[in-house]
C-alpha cells in the first residue's frame, strides 16, 4: 500500500520524459490526483491508536543492515496528506510555471513528491537518509531551471547548505551503524535502533549531527540564509514545495529521530534549542517586516513559523508536541495559500517589489480577498486553523517558562505587522491607471487555492480530526522520551480550544 503510494508519482516522473511534451501537464496532474486518492485511502485505513502500521520490510543492503522499510504513524500520516494535497494544488495554481520545459518541470515535481513521501514513510534510518538527500536533486533542478534571474546562484546556495547539513547527518548515521554493530548485528531499523543502549556522550554527539542537519532543513537561525534567496528566485510553486513540504522534513526529523533515538540528548540540548527557536521567531519576523520583495517576505515569515514549531517540539509537553505537529500542517496550508496568491499577483504586475504595487484592491477584489484570508491565517487570527496550533505552542511555552512564552508572543505581534502592512502596501491606496485593467483571479486560480482556504476555515473551527491523529503520537513519543505531564486530557484540550473559538 505505502510502496504503491510512493511508486505512483515516481513512475509518473520516470514516464514523463519519454512522452510528448504536450501531454506532460495532464499526466502530471492526473498522477498527483491519483496519489492524493491513495493518500486518502491510507488515511481511511489508518487506526489512530496503533502507532506504526501498514509496515512493509524487505532486506535491501544486507552487509550494512539496511532494509527497505516503510510504515506510517500519526505524524507520518499528516505529512503524507499534506504533501499529497499540496502537489496537485501547486500544479493547478502554477499552470504556466513549467511552460518553458514542461517535461522536465513536471517530471521533477513528481519526483520530488515521490521522494518526500518516501521520507515521511521511511522507518529505516539509512533509507530515510538516502531519500532525504535525494529530494535535493529535484529541488535543485526546479530552483535552477525555473524562476527569476539569478536563480542558478540561488540553487547552488540552496544545495550547498542542504548537502552540508546532509553530510553532517551522514557522520551521525555512520556513527549509529558503528554503535549498532558493536552491540550485535548492525541494523538501521528504527525499531532496532530505539532499543540500542547508546552511551550519554555518544548519544549527544550523534544527536548533534542529526539536529544540525534538521536545523538547516527547517530552517532555524543561524542557518537560515538560503531560505530568503531561494524563495525570492524560485517560482512561487517551487517555493511552496520547498517551504511547505521539504522543510517539514526538518521538524519531522527532529520529532522522529532527535527525540525518538536520543531522548536524553534532546533534553540536554533543550535550553540551546529553545533559545535558537526564540531568536528565529523574533528575528524572522523582523526580517520579514523589512522586506520589499513579496516572495522574500513570505519566505522569511516561515523562519518565524519554524521557530514556533521547534519551540513546540522542545518544550516537551503534550500540548507543545501536538501544537507543533498541528502547526506543521497549518503552516503548510497557510503559507502555500499565501505563496500561490502572491504568485498570481506577481504574474499580473510583472514585479515582486511591494513598493511598486498598491491600489490593486479595486481592480482585483477576489485576489485581494484571497490574499487577506491567507495573510490573516499566517498571523494567527482566531477562527483560522493556524491560531489553534499557535495557541497550543504558546500555552506549552508559558508552561515551560514565562519568559519563553513572553518572547514567543512577541512573534505574533510582529506577524500582525508584517502581514497587515504588506497587505496595505500591495492592495490598498489610490489605484494607479496602469493597474486598472489588471484581470482578477481566473476560475482556475480560485479553484486551485480553494481547498486550502476551505481547510484553513474548517480546521480553524473543528481541529479535532487533526488532534485525534497527533495526540496519540505525541503521547507515545513523550512516554518514550520519559517526560510526564498532566495537563487537561487530550480530547478535552481540543474541545476547550474549540469552545473558546466559538465564543468569539
Amino acid at each position, binding site marked *: 500500500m505505502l510502496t504503491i503510494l510512493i511508486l505512483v508519482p515516481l513512475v509518473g516522473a520516470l514516464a514523463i520524459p519519454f512522452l510528448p511534451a504536450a501531454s506532460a501537464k495532464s499526466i502530471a496532474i492526473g498522477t498527483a490526483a491519483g496519489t492524493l486518492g491513495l493518500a486518502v485511502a491510507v488515511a481511511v485505513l489508518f487506526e489512530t491508536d496503533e502507532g506504526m502500521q501498514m509496515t512493509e520490510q524487505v532486506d535491501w543492503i544486507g*552487509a550494512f543492515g539496511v532494509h527497505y522499510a516503510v510504515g506510517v504513524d500519526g505524524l507520518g500520516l499528516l505529512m503524507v496528506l499534506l504533501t499529497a494535497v499540496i502537489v496537485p494544488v501547486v500544479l493547478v495554481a502554477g499552470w504556466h510555471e513549467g511552460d518553458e520545459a514542461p517535461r522536465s518541470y513536471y517530471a521533477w515535481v513528481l519526483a520530488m513528491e515521490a521522494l518526500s513521501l518516501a521520507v515521511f514513510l521511511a522507518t529505516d534510518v539509512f533509507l530515510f537518509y538516502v531519500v*532525504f538527500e535525494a529530494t535535493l536533486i529535484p529541488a*535543485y533542478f526546479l530552483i535552477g531551471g525555473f524562476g527569476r534571474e539569478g536563480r*542558478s546562484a540561488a540553487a547552488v546556495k540552496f544545495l550547498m547548505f542542504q548537502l552540508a547539513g546532509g553530510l553532517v547527518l551522514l*557522520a551521525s548515521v555512520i556513527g549509529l551503524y558503528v554503535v549498532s*554493530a558493536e552491540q550485535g*548485528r548492525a541494523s538501521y531499523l528504527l525499531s532496532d535502533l530505539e532499543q540500542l543502549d547508546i552511551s550519554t556522550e555518544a548519544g549527544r554527539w550523534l544527536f548533534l549531527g542529526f539536529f544540525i542537519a534538521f536545523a538547516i532543513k527547517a530552517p532555524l537561525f543561524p542557518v537560515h540564509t538560503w531560505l530568503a534567496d531561494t524563495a525570492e528566485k524560485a517560482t512561487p510553486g517551487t517555493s511552496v514545495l520547498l517551504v511547505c513540504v521539504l522543510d517539514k522534513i526538518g521538524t519531522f526529523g527532529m520529532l522522529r529521530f532527535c527525540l525518538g533515538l536520543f531522548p536524553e540528548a534532546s533534553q540536554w540540548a533543550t535550553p540551546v534549542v529553545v533559545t535558537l527557536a526564540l531568536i528565529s521567531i523574533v528575528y524572522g519576523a523582523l526580517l520579514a517586516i523589512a522586506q520589499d520583495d513579496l516572495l522574500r517576505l513570505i519566505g522569511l515569515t516561515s523562519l518565524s513559523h519554524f521557530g514556533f514549531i521547534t519551540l513546540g517540539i522542545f518544550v516537551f509537553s503534550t500540548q507543545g508536541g501536538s501544537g507543533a505537529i498541528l502547526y506543521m500542517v497549518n503552516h503548510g496550508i497557510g503559507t502555500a495559500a499565501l505563496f500561490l496568491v502572491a504568485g498570481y499577483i506577481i504574474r499580473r504586475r510583472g514585479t515582486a517589489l511591494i513598493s511598486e504595487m498598491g491600489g490593486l484592491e479595486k481592480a482585483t477584489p477576489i485576489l485581494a480577498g484571497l490574499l487577506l484570508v491567507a495573510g490573516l491565517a499566517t498571523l494567527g487570527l482566531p477562527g483560522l486553523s493556524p491560531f489553534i496550533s499557535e495557541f497550543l505552542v504558546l500555552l506549552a511555552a508559558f508552561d515551560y517558562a514565562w519568559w519563553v512564552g513572553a518572547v514567543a508572543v512577541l512573534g505574533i505581534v510582529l506577524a500582525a505587522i508584517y502581514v497587515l502592512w504588506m497587505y496595505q502596501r500591495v492592495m490598498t491606496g489610490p489605484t494607479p491607471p496602469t493597474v486598472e485593467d489588471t484581470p482578477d483571479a481566473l476560475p482556475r486560480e480560485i479553484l486551485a487555492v480553494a481547498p486550502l482556504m476551505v481547510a484553513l476555515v474548517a480546521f480553524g473551527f473543528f481541529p479535532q480530526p487533526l488532534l485525534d491523529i497527533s495526540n496519540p503520537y505525541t503521547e507515545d513519543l513523550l512516554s518514550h522520551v520519559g517526560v510526564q505531564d498532566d495537563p487537561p486530557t487530550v480530547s478535552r484540550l481540543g474541545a476547550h480550544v474549540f469552545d473558546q473559538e466559538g465564543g468569539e
Partner: protein
Amino acid sequence: MSDVDFVKPTIEYAELSPLLIVFGVAALGVVVEAFVARERRHVVQVSLAFVGVLAALAATVLVGLDLADVGPGQGLVGAEGSVVVDGPTVYLWGLVLVFALGGVALFAERRLEAGVSVFAGQAAALPGTEAERRSSGLAHTEVYPLVMFAVAGMMLFPAAGDLLTMFVALEVLSLPLYLLCGLARRRRLLSQEAALKYFLLGAFSSGFFLYGVALVYGYAGSMDLDVIHSAVLNRTDDRTLLLLGIAMLSVGLLFKVGAVPFHAWTPDVYQGAPTAVTAFMSAATKVAAFGAILRLYYVGFGANRWDWQPMLWVVAIITMLVGAVLAVVQSDVKRMLAYSSVAHTGFILTGVLGLQATGALGEGEVTSLQAVLFYLTTYGFATVGAFALVTLVRDANGEATASAKWAGLGRRSPLVAGVFALFLLSMAGIPLTAGFVGKWAVFTVAMSAGAWPVVLVAIASSIIAIFFYIKFVRLMFFVDAEGDVAEVSVPSPLTSVTIGVCALVTIGLGLVPGPVLDLVAHAGDFIR
C-alpha cells in the same frame, strides 16, 4: 658435481591463467605488429585485444569459482611464493580487466576523428613535419600490445607475494603507460610534456620504492611478505630500518595513486594524455595500486599498523583537502576530474586506514578491505564513464576541454549532459548513486577504527568537492552559452556502449549494491 639438486619450480598454470593469457596476448600483439599487413593490422589488433581480455575475464571467473577448493583459506600462494591468488586478487583482476575492456573500446574509437584513431602516427614524428604527414594516414596499432602489457602489470601488482615481484609489476604497468600518455594526435606538445613528466617523476618514485625494498630486506632478511610479517610480529630490536623502509615503499605506492604530496603529476598527465588513455589509466591504475597498497600494509605490515596508520591519517587528510580545494579553481574539465581523482584517493585512503584486528569487528560488520574494494569499483566506473564522455564533447579543434565551452550543454544535448551529471553526482556521493554507497562504506570503516578526525575532514572535503561538481552541473544546465561552444559528436557503439554500461553500473550499484557487497565480502581476506 654439486650436492644441490635442481628443483623444478612448480607453476600453478590453472590458477595463474588470467595473468598468463594477458601476457600471451600482449606478446602476440607484438608479433602481429611485425608480421601482419598494415591495412589489416587495426582489425586484427583490436579483435585480439578484445578476445584476450574477454578470455582472461572468463578465466578469472573460473578461478574465482574454484577458489574455495584450491587451498586453505580460499586461495593459494603460487609460482614459488611470488604470486598470491586469493579472493581479493581475483576481485581486483576482474575489476582491472573490466576497465581494460572499456579502455580497449575507447582506444578503438575512430568515428569521432573522422576515421582516424586518436593516437599519433609515430610518436617521434614532430607536429607539422614531413614525417607527420607521411605517417598520418597509417594505422597506429602499437597501443594495443602496450595496453595489454600495462594490464598484465596491473594484474600482477596486487597479486605480488614478495616485494621484488611487486617492483617488477610496478615497472611493467608503468612503462607502457608512460608511452601511451605521449601518443596524442592532437595537442602533441601537451601530451609529450605529460609523458615526460610522468616518466621522470615515475622513475624517481620507483627509485624510492626500490630503496624501500632494500631497507625492508635489511630488516627482515627476506622479500616475502609472509616472512616480513613474521619478522615484524616477532622481533623486538631496533626498527629504524623497517620504519624507513615502510616510508620509502609508501612514497612509491602513494605516487602511483596520486596522493598528496606526490600528486603533482596527476593534473598534467590526466590533461595531456589522450582522453581514452586517461579514462583507462585513472581507473585501472588506481585499482591496481590500491590493491598493492592493501596487500603490502595488511599482509606485510599488518602487525605494526600503529606505526603506519598515523602517517596515512596525515596523508589522507591533506590529500582530500588539497584535491578538493584545487579542483574548485580549475577551468578545464580534465584537470577538474584529475584533482577530483586526487580527492578520491584521499577518500580511499580513509578506507585503507580503517584496518582493525578481526576480533574488534562486530558480526557481519563491513571490513576495511571490503569497503576499499567496493569504493574502487564505484569510482572506477564513474571515472571511465566521465572521461569517455569528455571525448564526445568537441569543437573544431577536437575535444573541447575548457569548461567555458560546456556552458549550456544541457540545453543542446540533454542526454549527454544528464549522463555526465550522473557521473559527477556519483563522484560527489549523492544518494541513489553508487558513489554514495562507496563513501558510506569507507567512512564507516574509518569511523569504526576510531579515525573520527579523518572522517570529519573527509566530510568537510566532501562539502568542498560537492561545490565544484554542482558548479559544473550548473554550468551545463543553467548557464547560457556564449560565443564559441562545444557540440556533442556521435560516437561509434564502442564508446557509447562503454558509457552506457558505466552509467547503468553507477545507478545500479546505487540502488542495489547488495550483490557486489556480498561479492567483496565473499572474497574474504588476504592470505599469506
